[in-house]
Structure formats: C-alpha cells, structure tokens
C-alpha cells in the first residue's frame, strides 16, 4: 500500500460524514451551511479521486486490493471488506464524484425554496446516494458491490419521493423501489450461485476460476446478474420506473441518470466482462434487450410533451445502446458512452432544471417556446447537450456512439441498422425538445413570461463546466480512422476491460469514414426536419391519433404490466387476505379455541359437586382396574 491508496477509504467516507452531519443536525444547520457541507465533502472526495487517478495512471500500476476488515467469515465462506483500485473503478470514481459535485453545487441554488430541515435532508440523501454508489464501484467483491447496489436503490426511493406530501410522487418512489427489488433478487441469486460454484465472491477468485466452470452455469449466473442490471439500469422489462422517477427534484434526476444510479448496471457488466465473454448466450441476450430498449424508448420519447420525460426516455434509450455495446463485446465503448452520456445527460437535466426554475415549475414544452433570449446561458448549454447526444462531431456523444455503431456493424448488419434508427430518433426528439423549448414564440401565460429570468451563478457554473466536458469529453476516445493510437481510454482501460476484437475483417478506412459521414448527414437531416416542424412560431399541437397515440401513451406498457402483473397480484393478495386469512387461518385458530371452550362446557357437567358421585366413579374405576389386573392380564 503506498501513499495514495491508503487514503482510498476517505473517498466514500467523506460523503458518508456529510450525510451524517446533514442528517443528524438538519434542524440546526442553516441552509447555506448544509449546502456547503454537502458540496464541500463531495469536492474533497473528488479531489482525492483525481489524486488517485493520477496514481493509477502512472505506467506500471498494478490493480490493488485494499483490505480493511473481515466482513463475513462463516465456515468455508469468506467475504472481506476490501476495495479494489484499478482503472475501471477509478474512471467511475471520477465520473461519480465529479458530476456529483457539480450537481450538489447546482442544488444549493435549485432547492433554495425548501425549508431548512428539508434542505438539509435533501443534501443528506444526496450524499448518501453518492456514498452508496462509491461503495458499489470500489468494492472488491460482489457482496460489497451489492451493499452499494441496495444503497442506491434505497436513496433513489428517498429522493424520488422527496416531496412526500404528493401521493403521486410516493407512488413513483415505490414503483422505482419495487422494480429495483425485482432486479436485486436476480443479483442476489447470482451471488448465491457464485458462492456455490466458486466458493468465493471476490472478483479475482471468481474471474480466475470462471474458465473452468461449465458454460451453462456461467450463462445462468450472467443472466441473473443481467436481471439485476435490468432493474438498476432501466432495461426492458424493468424500465418503467425511470420515467416515473421524474417525480423527484430535477438535480436528483440528473444524479440518477448521469452519475449514480443507472450506470451501476453497466459498471457491473463491464466489471464482470470475463464472465460475460465466456457466456455467448447471455451476450446475445444483452445485445438484443439493449437494442430493443433503445428503440422502444426512442419511439416513446418522440411523442412526450414533458421536458423531463423526454430526457428520461432518452436516457433509457442511450442505456439500451450501452447494453448493446456490452452485448457485442465492446466493453470500452459501453464505458466510454457511460462517461460521455454522464456529461451531456447531467448537462441536459441541469439545463432543463434551469428552464423549469425560470418557468416556475412548468414542465410542459407545449407551454414554452422562445426562451432563447431570456435564458441565454441555459439555451447555449442545452444546445450543446443536444448536439452531443445527437452525435454531431466533434461533440463527445459522436465519438462514443460511433464506437458503439462500429462494434454493432462488425457483429451484424441488423444490429447496425437498428441502432442507426435509434440514434436518428434520438436526434429528432432531442431537437424537437430543443426547438419547442427555445425557438418560436412563447406559449405560456403572461405572468410566467414576466418572471422569466436566467438562473443564479451556482446553477450556471455547473452548466458551463458540463458544457465544456460535453464538447471535449469525447476526445479521449478518438477512433483509429482519424488518428493512430489516439484512443486513450481504450489503452487506459485495457488491463481491466479487453479491447474490442472484431470478428470480421476490419473495413477499410475510406469505407468507415463514408459510413460515419453518412450517419452524420442523416442526423443533420433529422435536426433540419425537426427544425422545419417545430421551430415555427405557430406550432399546433393536435391530439395524437393512430400510432402516435400509442407512442404518446408509452405503448401502454404500464397498462399491460398493470393488467398482467399488478391486478392478478392484487387479486391473489385480496383472496389471501379475505378468504385465506379471514376464513381458513383465522377459522383454524378460532376453531381450536371454540373446540376447547365447547369441550370444557361438556366436561364441566361431570363436575357436579356431588361428592357421592365422585366416589362412585372412583370405586367403579378401581374395580375396573382390579378386574383388568385379575382377568385380562395376558
């Protein structure tokens, strides 16, 4: 253990301290103190992460397992509490603490209307959220990861239901929690299976023993792990909680979507890439589900009118693309997209928060429009975010998305074609959102118009920083076509995550450039189409009909789940509570009582109080025994 790695425990510990201070003293701290406590500890944690990153980035660095104490030691099972410092975990540390700090800073201004105890509660949850995620990323075995995994699930519940006075928000929080629990069950089963198969949950043991295990077992374990990832990272069929999670405050959405929550699934699969590459069936499942999610969410996003809902579905769609990358074996591309997506999705959410803040909690884009002049900084950063997510060079999204598309192209033309469709839809709905919000004429009320204002510096500074990252963040992964050996990220992550190996003959550079250029042209065409449709000053909003009504109503997935899962479950529960519980179980318990009472009443009649009758019975009994002894004895 050298100078730097002995301070690793501080990185998750600092947000935990912030959580304790804000949580315990929420009634005594003023708003500015609790804001600075929350943000300050995050900033320290970020600085430590940067120092750790510099340490890891030195040549000759070997991944280190830092042991703290025995967590569980029972029989043959040994689970230490230890952290793993390597390239992958450090990269995630940087994303989580960096973006987390910006979101904390932003929140100090965004949440200023809250009462001071709620304000401190908010920062306490936020710090706990980041702490759990750091634990998840740093853990050196699956159990520590699972602790963090459960922690983020809990914090997402707390934060989505932050305004618990509203029953709708509580429902959304519960939904997120239950959906996550379904996934968590898969993860837990995978851990149990790992223990029976490998006798250990430590990454190093599991990965070294994996090649000797039967493929069927590995497929089972990886599929169960993927079920966990489905829940946490919002993939079909467990994605419906994420759009509903918009009930929480907007910076929370940014935190969930960019830094802390949904990236957990990607991290887990990237971390377990050795297991996944040994189970081709799972890889194909991951790719297909990822792509299906990307397409489904993109079609839904086309027709949503709530600014945060559009962003939420775009996150689901982008996560689908990341899983596609993981499924085809391009782990670097998946992690790369996590990073760039974290930049521009945090940017988009915080900018959307700024818009919502200026519009006094109006989220319907049909009531916005023409905000460009009133909110110049927000407008600029939102535009940068849209360009980045749409994949226009040289913004960050272009590089990571291109890498995913290239990997899909190598595996199958169908995957390639469908992922292009998904990215084209992304460009269209993001610019529909952009034009409806910032171009044309203002469609809100007069009162809202007079109150329009640019947000304070605590909100715009994070926006500017994130905008810069969204522009430049992709330059650490420049593909081979443009410059030789310029993909810094791939070579950085190589010790943990294998570099993508094409199955087919690599296509020529001219061909690749042509495909890339073609896609960019198509995306620009999409943006232009959106411009023609939505940048006018008199956009009309007709009731959707036909297929677009299906899209606007989210393909009725919630209704289907309601009909096939929730309703039958409710029916079974009410049968259990009304018939099973009330009649059978209560009947059995009460029946025993009634039988005893009845029997007692009958037997009581023997107790007449007549001594003579007692003696008579006694004498008859004695005579009976006597006769038995004398004559029945065998």
């Amino acid at each position, binding site marked *: 253990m050298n100078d730097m790695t002995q301070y690793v425990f501080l990185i998750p510990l600092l947000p935990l301290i912030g959580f304790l201070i804000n949580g315990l003293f929420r009634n005594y701290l003023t708003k500015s103190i609790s804001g600075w406590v929350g943000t300050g500890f995050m900033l320290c944690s970020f600085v430590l992460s940067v120092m750790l990153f510099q340490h890891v980035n030195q040549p000759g660095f070997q991944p280190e397992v830092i042991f703290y104490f025995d967590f569980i030691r029972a029989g043959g099972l040994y689970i230490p509490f230890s952290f793993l410092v390597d390239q992958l975990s450090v990269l995630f540390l940087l994303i989580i603490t960096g973006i987390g700090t910006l979101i904390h800073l932003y929140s100090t201004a965004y949440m200023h209307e809250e009462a001071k105890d709620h304000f401190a509660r908010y920062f306490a949850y936020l710090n706990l959220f980041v702490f759990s995620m750091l634990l998840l990323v740093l853990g050196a075995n699956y159990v520590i990861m699972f602790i963090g995994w459960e922690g983020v699930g809990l914090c997402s519940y707390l934060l989505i239901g932050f305004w618990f006075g509203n029953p709708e928000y509580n429902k959304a929080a519960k939904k997120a929690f239950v959906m996550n629990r379904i996934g968590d069950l898969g993860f837990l089963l995978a851990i149990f299976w790992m223990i029976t198969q490998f006798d250990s949950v430590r990454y190093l043991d599991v990965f070294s023993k994996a090649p000797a295990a039967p493929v069927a077992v590995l497929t089972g374990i990886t599929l169960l792990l993927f079920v966990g990832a489905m829940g946490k990272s919002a993939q079909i069929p467990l994605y419906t909680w994420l759009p509903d999670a918009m009930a929480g405050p907007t910076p929370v959405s940014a935190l969930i979507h960019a830094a802390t929550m949904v990236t957990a699934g990607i991290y887990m699969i990237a971390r377990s890439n050795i297991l996944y590459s040994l189970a081709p069936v799972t890889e194909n499942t991951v790719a297909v589900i990822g792509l299906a999610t990307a397409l489904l969410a993109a079609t839904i996003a086309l027709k949503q009118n709530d600014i945060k809902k559009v962003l939420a579905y775009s996150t689901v769609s982008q996560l689908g693309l990341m899983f596609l990358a993981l499924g085809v074996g391009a782990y670097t591309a998946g992690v790369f997209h996590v990073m760039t997506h974290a930049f521009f999705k945090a940017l988009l959410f915080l900018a959307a928060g700024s818009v919502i803040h200026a519009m006094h909690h109006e989220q319907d884009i049909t009531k916005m429009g023409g905000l460009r002049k009133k909110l110049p900084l927000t407008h600029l950063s939102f535009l940068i975010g849209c360009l980045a997510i749409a994949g226009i060079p040289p913004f960050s999204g272009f590089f990571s998305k291109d890498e995913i598309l290239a990997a899909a192209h190598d595996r199958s033309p169908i995957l390639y074609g469908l992922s292009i469709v998904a990215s084209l839809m992304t460009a269209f709905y993001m610019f529909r959102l952009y034009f409806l919000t910032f171009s044309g004429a203002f469609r809100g009320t007069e009162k809202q118009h007079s109150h329009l204002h640019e947000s304070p510096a605590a909100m715009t500074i994070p926006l500017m920083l994130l905008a810069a990252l969204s522009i430049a963040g992709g330059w650490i992964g420049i593909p081979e076509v443009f410059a030789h050996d310029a993909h810094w990220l791939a070579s950085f992550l190589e010790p943990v995550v294998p570099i993508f190996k094409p199955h087919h003959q690599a296509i020529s550079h001219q061909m690749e450039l042509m495909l890339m250029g073609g896609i960019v042209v198509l995306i620009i065409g999409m943006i232009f189409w959106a411009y023609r449709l939505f940048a006018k000053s008199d956009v009309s909003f007709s009731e959707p009909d036909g297929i677009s009504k299906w899209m606007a109503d989210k393909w009725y997935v919630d209704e289907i789940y309601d009909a096939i899962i929730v309703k039958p479950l409710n029916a079974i529960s009410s049968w259990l509570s009304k018939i099973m519980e009330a009649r059978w179980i209560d009947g059995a318990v009460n029946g025993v009582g009634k039988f005893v009472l009845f029997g007692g009443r009958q037997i009581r009649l023997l*107790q*007449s*109080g*007549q*001594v*003579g009758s007692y*003696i*008579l019975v006694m*004498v008859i009994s004695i005579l009976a025994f006597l006769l038995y002894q004398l004559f029945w004895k065998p």
Partner: protein
Amino acid sequence: MNMPIIPVNYYIFLSAALFAIGVVGVLTRRNAIIIFMCIELMLNSVNVLLVAFSKMHHVAAFALDRTTAVGTEAQLFVFFIMVVAAAEVTVGLAIIVMLYRNIHSVDINFLNRLKH
C-alpha cells in the same frame, strides 16, 4: 396356648366384608358422620388384614427359627394407620362441626358450592 388356629381365609373374608360395607356406606349414605364412620370401617378392615397376614408370616418363620422377628413389621403399620386415622378424625370431626354450625345440616348433598 393351644388355641385352634383359625385359617387366614376367615380373616380375608371378614376384612372384605367390612370393606364392602364401608364402600357401600360411603356411596349410599348422605349423612357426613355416617360416611365418616364408613371410612373408618374401611381403614380398620385393612388393619385386620394386615394383622392377619403378619401373623401368618410370623408363624411360618417362627417354625424355622425361634428367634426371628419376621412378620412383625406389618403390626407396626397398623399402629401408624390408627394414629393417622385418629388425627384425621379430629380434623374431620372439626370440619363437620363447623359445617353444622354454618348450614345446620350434615347432608353432603348440600355441599356442592365448589361446583360454581
């Protein structure tokens, strides 16, 4: 000394008859004092039996060994039973006296209040 030896059967029948009289008396009579006397009768029927058997044993052992004390223990039991019976009688009669003072009757069919 040469009294005719009465066979032990006679004592057994006497004892059985006394015991049966006692049982029937307890079962059929309602007067507490009579019941008490019947119980005493049963106790004493057992005493008769004890003495008879004890004597029988002793005679059998005495024929073999002139110094033996075998068969005399049961006669000691009889004294114990008499003592206990005497103690019982004092308590029992005291109870009966108290009963009579309270309800002016010694009919046990009135004594069924514990039922409630």
